C-alpha cells in the first residue's frame, strides 16, 4: 500500500469520527413532553426547550421565586405546546429574566424535575429603529 493511501484512509477515518461525534453531541430543540419522554427512556443528553414565562390574566409574570439565599431561582415556563413546567436553575436569577420575551432553557429532567444548566433570554429590545425621540 502506498503511503499516501494510508494517510488518505486515516484522514477519512478522522473525518467520519468528527461527523459521528458531532451528530451525537448535537442538542435539539424539543418540547417539555418530548424532553420528559427522552429522560424516561434513559437519554441523559441536555436539550433545548423554548418557551415563555407564565403570566396571569393581567399579563404579569407569575411563578418566579428566587431562593432564600438568592443564589438560585425557579420559574414556570410555558412551552410552545402550552405545557407548563417548573424550571430550577442553580444560578442567581438572570437580571433580565422578568423582562424577557422568550426563554431558552438548556438542561433536562432529573428526578422528574426540570433542572436547567443554562438559560438564554431573548429580551424585547427597547431599541427600535422605527421610533424617533423628539
Amino acid at each position, binding site marked *: 500500500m502506498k503511503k499516501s493511501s494510508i494517510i488518505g484512509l486515516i484522514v477519512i477515518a478522522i473525518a467520519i469520527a468528527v461527523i459521528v461525534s*458531532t451528530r451525537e453531541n448535537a*442538542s435539539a*430543540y424539543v418540547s417539555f413532553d418530548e424532553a420528559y419522554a427522552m429522560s424516561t427512556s434513559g437519554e441523559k443528553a441536555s436539550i433545548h426547550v423554548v418557551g415563555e414565562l407564565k403570566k396571569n390574566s393581567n399579563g404579569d409574570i407569575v411563578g418566579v421565586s428566587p431562593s432564600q439565599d438568592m443564589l438560585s431561582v*425557579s420559574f414556570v415556563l410555558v412551552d410552545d405546546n402550552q405545557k407548563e413546567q417548573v424550571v430550577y436553575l442553580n444560578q442567581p436569577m438572570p*437580571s433580565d429574566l422578568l423582562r424577557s420575551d422568550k426563554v431558552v432553557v438548556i438542561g433536562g429532567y432529573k428526578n422528574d424535575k426540570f433542572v436547567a444548566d443554562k438559560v438564554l433570554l431573548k429580551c424585547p429590545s427597547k*431599541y427600535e429603529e*422605527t421610533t424617533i425621540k423628539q
Partner: protein
Amino acid sequence: MIHTGIGNLGHLLVIISFIGAILAAISYGRASMSNTLNDSWAKLGRFSFLSHGIAVLGSAVVLFVIIYNHYFEYHYAWSHSSVNLATHYMIACFWEGQEGSFLIWSVWNALLGFILIKTNKKWEAPVMTVFATVQAFLASMILGVVIGDLKIGSSPFMLLRDVVSDPVFLINPNFIPADGTGLNPLLQNYWMVIHPPMTFLGFACTLIPFSFAIAGLWKKDFRDWIRPALPWTIFGGVILGTAIIMGGYWAYETLNFGGYWNWDPVENAVYVPWLVLIASMHTMIVFKKSDTALKTSFVLVISTFLLILYATFLVRSGILGNASVHSFTDLGLSGQLLIYLSFFIIATLIIAGRVWKEIPTSEKEASSYSREFWIFIGALTLCLMAFQVIVPTSFPVFNKIVELFGGLSSLAPPADQVAFYSKWQVWFAVGIAFLSGTGQFFFWKKMDKEKLKTALTIPVILSLVLSAIIFMVADIYNPVYIVVLIAGMYSIVSNGKILIDLMKSGSYKLTGGSVAHIGIAMILIGIMFSEGYSRIVSKNTTIISRDFTEEQNSNMIVLFLNDPKPMAGYQLTYMSENMEAEGIPGYISKSNLEDTEQPNYKVAKQSILIDDQVYAEAGDTLYFRNPENTFHEVQYISNSSGKSFTLFPRTQVNEEMGSTIVSPDIKKLWNRDLYTFVALQSDFEDEFTEWSEKEIKPLKQGEQFFINDYIAVFESLERLPNVNFVDLGPNDAAVQANITVYSENDKKILLQPKFIIKENNVGRPLELNQEIAVRVSLENINPADGSIELGIETTQKDWIILQAIEKPQINILWIGTIVMIIGFIIATRRRYVEFVKMRDKALA
C-alpha cells in the same frame, strides 16, 4: 438645515466605485488576454482601478464626516452615533453597521490593490482582474440602488426620513433629530476601534493569494504565482491571527463568557479560514522547497478565500439567528450575499476544472524523512481541525437547507459547546505541537533514521525533564494535560534549538518559522493552564429550592455591603456602588449623586475630593458619558500577606441590547489572573424588595437619631429655588431636609428628602439610598421651629452576587501571542525580500 449634498456625494462616489471596479475588471481582463505589458487595456484598467479606489476612499471619508459632524438627518449617523460619544468611538461607529464594515473591507482591498499595481509587473493584469471583480461585488453591497422590487445593496448614505417612516416627517420633512441612538454601550470599548479594521485587513489579505492562484490557473502559469503570493499569505496569517486573539482578549475583558473563547459561530467563522490559511502557507513553502504540494496549495489558497466569503454569509445574512450572541442584524442582503458566495465558488470550479489535469504533479512520493512530508501532515492536521469546527457551526445552514426541501431539522449546537470543541481541538493541537517540533529537524533534506535519532535525543530528553519539573511544581495529574504540556515543551525546546543554531550561524532572517512555532506552543501551554486549571474560587453549596433537599454546588457568593466574607484566602468586602464621571479620575459613589432630568447629568451632593484635589463642589453638575454603567467596589484583603487591592466589576443596563451586561474586573498577577464579576446586583425598586412599615420620626434641628442602625443627624432645613423633575410656579415652594448619616469607614452620606407644594398639592418624593438601605420621605414640616417629621422605611442591606475565577498562567498565552506575531513578521519580510529580488531579475 438638512445637508443633502454630502450624502449625494457619498452615494455618487459609491456608484463611481462600482462602475470603476467593473470597468477595471473588464479592461484588466482584456489586458491579460493580450499578454503584452503596457498596452492600452492595461492602462485603462489601471486608470479605472485607481478611480475606483479613490472613490472608495472618498466615500469612506464622506461617511466619517457625516458621523463626525453629527448629521443625524442621515440614518447611519442616527442609528450608530450620538452626541455623547467620544471621538475615538465615532471611528468605531463607522463599522458598527454592516454598510460601514463592508466599506472598511473595501477600503483595505483598494489600498492593497494599489500596492499590487505598484509592485507587480507580469501579474498585474490577471491579478487585478480578480481584485476588481471582488471589489465590484463589495461595492454592490452598499450601492443602495432600487430597480422596481429589486434592491441592490444597502447604502450608508440614506436619509433618516427615507428609511424610517415616522409621522414627524409628514409634519416637517426637514426634521432633524437632536441626538442619535448611539453606539451600543457594550461596544464602547477601545477594542471596537482596533479589532474590526484588523479583522477586515486580514480578510482583505486573503484576497491577494486567491487572486494570484486564480491568475495562475487562468494564465496556465501554475508555478510562478507562489512566490509573489507567499509573503501576503504570511502577512494575512499574522493579521488575521492577531485579530482573532484580540477578539478573544476583548471578550475576556469585557464580556462575561468567563473566558476568551466561547466557540460562538461568529468566532468560529473566522477561526476556520485562519486555520486553512496557515495550512496553505505551509504547503506553499513546501512547494517552493521541493516542487511538491502544488495542487494542495491551489486548493487551500482558494478555500481560504471562499471560507472568508462563507463566514461573511454566516455572520451577515441573519441565518445564525439564535445560535450566536453577536451576529449582525439582518439587512435583507442575504440573497445578494448568497449570489456573491455562489459566484466565486462556481467561477473557481470552472477556472480550476478547465486546467486541473495540466497542473504538474510530482510523481515521486515524499520520503518520511523529508521536511516536506511532515509539513504536509501538519497542513492536513490543520485542515481537519478546521473541518471539526465548521461542521457544527454550519448547523443553522443545514437546518435551512433541509427546510428548503420540505424537511424538518432542529439541530441545536452542543449543550456544552466549550467542552465539545475542546475535546477535539486539544488533540489536533497536540499533533500540531509535535509536528512543528519535529518538522524543523528536517531542515536539511538529507535525513535518515540514524541522523534523526541523534538530532532528536537531546530535545526529547530536555523537554521531558522540563515537563516533569513543571508538573511536579504545578501538581498536574490529568493525563490529557500532561500530554499537552509535553507536546508544547517539546515544540518549544526543539524550535528553540533550531533558533539557537540559526542565530549562531547568523541567519537571523530565517528564524521566522521557529520563533512563530515557539509562540504557538506557548499559546497552547497558556491555554492548557488557564482553561484546564481555571478554578472558580467563589465556590459554595446551596439548596436550590425547597423542593430539592440535596445541596447543589453554587459557583457564586452573596456579599452584603460592608460585611466581609472569606473566600479562597481573601477577605472580601463589597464597599460601594459607583459611577464614572467625565474629567474626574476614579469612581464616584452613587450615594453622593442626585439625578437630574437628563441621565447624563447628575449633581454632586458633597464635594468630590480625590488625592487631596477637589474635583467638584457640592451642588456642581457633573457629566456622565455612560450613565448606564455601575461599578461595584469590592475590596480583597489577602489573609496571608494582609495586602489589599480593590476591583471594580461593572454592570451595564444596556437598553439597546434589551439586557443587562456584566463585565469583569481583572486583577493581574504575574502567575495568574483573578477574574471577578457581579452576576446580579440588588435593585431596591424591584418587586422582591420587602420594605419595613413606615416609621414616622419627629426631629428637631441638630437632633441625633438612628436610621437602620446608623447614626444620623438632622442638620438643617432649606428652601429650594428649583427642583429637578418639577417646574415650580410663583406660588409653589420646595423645602429640603439635610440629614447626614455616618456610615462605615468614616463615610458621610447625605439624605435630602423634599417637601414640594405645587398648585396646592403636596408632594413627598421618596429619597432612596441603597448604601444604607432606607427610603425616607419628608412627611411634615413645622415652619415655626424648623422641626420635621421624617418617614423611614428600611430593608435588607444592599448586596451583590459575585463570581471569582482564577486563571493561572494566562500571561503565557498573551506572551506567546506576541512571540508568534514577531515570528510571522520575520517570515513575511524574508519572503517579500525573496520576491523582490526575483522580480527585479525580471523573473516574476
